[in-house]
């Protein structure tokens, strides 16, 4: 922004110098930690080891993914559960955001909002520990169920798909509530009052006024929640145990346990591809720009 009208701006050479010094760290950060590692990962995934230290370009890893049912089934399963978790998170978070912005007033509203945020200041590990203690066979809820006479013996509530869903929804709530509150806050109450006075039902107000207005917030929340669930590792593995079958777990196994980096890199790219595709789809559906969505949250 070399402003010619501003007599006080620094001389051109000094601005160039400052620009260089500011540009260097940004470029180093993005090239060394983001761009080059991903190019390297792509190269890794597209080669195959034919002998120690001898490699050959190959699509073998991607072929393995499609021909080995376990791999693509886990992939599809991860995607489906993530989508379910996103939908559930929206269903749970929307009424909460509505109460915060439209029903509660003044202090009650801001207090409720802060209270909603508190659990997310605590590490995900701690939250998972809480669910473990609550849900495992010797845990709090199963023994409560026995005491209430609902089940004769304690039941194992961990290691089910539903458990993974509960954990994922719990971890993701914040990332849905915040964009929803932001978008609902800007909705003018007068619009709702007008519709109500003209005889609109609650359902039609929701459909024709509230949801169109909140659409950017809903998309932003859904994109972020889906992405985070897809890439989650801790919650599915702890709450799902051996049954979790989460795709990030496969990546970890290939990379760290089996030391098969080529396969792990291919899996990583498939996950990245799915995540990027869903982000792009969400943006396309709502006609938003990436930059605006990220700013909003």
């Amino acid at each position, binding site marked *: 922004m070399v402003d010619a009208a501003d007599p*006080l701006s620094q001389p051109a050479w000094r*601005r160039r110098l*400052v*620009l260089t*010094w*500011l*540009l260097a*760290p*940004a470029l180093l*950060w*993005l090239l060394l*930690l983001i761009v*080059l*590692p*991903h190019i*390297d*990962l792509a190269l890794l995934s597209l080669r195959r080891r034919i002998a120690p230290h001898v490699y050959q370009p190959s699509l073998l890893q991607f072929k393995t993914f499609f021909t080995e049912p376990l791999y693509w089934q886990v992939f599809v399963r991860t995607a489906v559960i993530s989508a379910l978790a996103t939908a559930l998170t929206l269903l*749970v978070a929307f009424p*909460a955001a509505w*109460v915060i912005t*439209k*029903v509660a007033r003044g202090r009650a509203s801001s207090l*409720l909002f802060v*209270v909603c945020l*508190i*659990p997310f*200041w*605590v*590490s*995900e*590990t*701690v*939250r998972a*520990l809480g*669910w*473990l*203690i*609550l849900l*495992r066979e010797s*845990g*709090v809820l199963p*023994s409560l169920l026995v005491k209430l006479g609902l089940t004769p013996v304690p039941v194992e509530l961990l290691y089910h798909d539903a458990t993974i869903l509960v954990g994922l929804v719990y971890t993701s*709530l914040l990332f849905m509530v915040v964009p929803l509150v932001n978008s609902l806050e800007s909705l003018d*109450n007068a619009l709702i*009052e007008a519709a*109500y006075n003209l005889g609109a039902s609650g359902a039609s107000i929701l459909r024709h006024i509230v949801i169109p207005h909140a659409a950017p917030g809903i998309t932003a929340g859904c994109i972020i929640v889906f992405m985070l669930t897809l*890439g989650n*590792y*801790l919650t599915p593995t*702890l709450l799902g145990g051996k049954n979790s079958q989460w795709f990030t777990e496969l*990546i970890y196994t290939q*990379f*760290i346990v089996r030391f098969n980096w080529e396969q792990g890199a291919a899996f*990583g790219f498939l*996950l*990245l591809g799915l*995540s990027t595709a869903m*982000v792009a789809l969400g943006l396309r559906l709502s006609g938003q720009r*990436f*930059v605006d969505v990220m700013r909003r949250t």
Partner: protein
Amino acid sequence: MISTLPRPVWLRTATVLYVAAFLLFLFLPLTTVAVFAFNNAPYPAPPWRGFTLDWFLGNASAGRVGLFHDTELLGSIVTSLIVACWVTVVSVIIGTANSFLMERFEFPGKQALSVLMLVPLVIPGVILGISILALSSRIAELADTLFGWDLDFLRPGLPLVVAGQFSYIATITTLMISARLKRFDRTLEEAALNLGASHAAVLRTITFPYLRPAMIGSAAISFLMSFENFNTTLMLVGADAPLTVTMYGRMREGASPVLNAVSLFLMLASAALALSLLRGGRRSA
């Protein structure tokens, strides 16, 4: 419906019930963790066997190793603190530099750079971790075979953990600090320059004090995100494990209530950080 419109009784009841259920859902796991830190039993499970502080104070001779005598846990807390400090300092410095770059300068490729800066947020943490691990290991390998150099910092360990966490936390600090710099009234700087202040003096006495709330806020967020990070850290961790990784390992083995004790500490620390941020935010607003 909204508060200004008449709401039938059933809707009000439903709202109250919903809010109660929502709050229960939010706080049940956390309160459970906190309560069982004081249960006098070897496992964090019901029934309640009475109050004890063993899981904080106990040592090996008492048969129960409490948090204050658990060297592994204490060590991993220190590791986490060291990592978080590095990540915070570097992220805030780079974030500040980036926000000046993006708000004050025009250069070819700026649009592309601003999009690229957001990309780390949409890459799953596990993939950030493995990509950095793969590249750095291969470089270390190459340096070893070509020159016989032993580049230890490129092997899994704390420097890589810091780099991995920084790679996406820098985006967050950049966004937070840029947002404040964008709202800055530049006539203040011009007035100071007109009155003869040097550029350095203007930065020191006007621009940086204005940016300080955003820098402090983003430092707190960076610290917290680094301390809590798991996905990226797990891929890059070496011999010294940060707290989240140690806790994860223990939870898979079947945890003793000492984990509840350390969790309670984390909750208190987070709450203190949140409160001081809120209070600080109110003062500067």
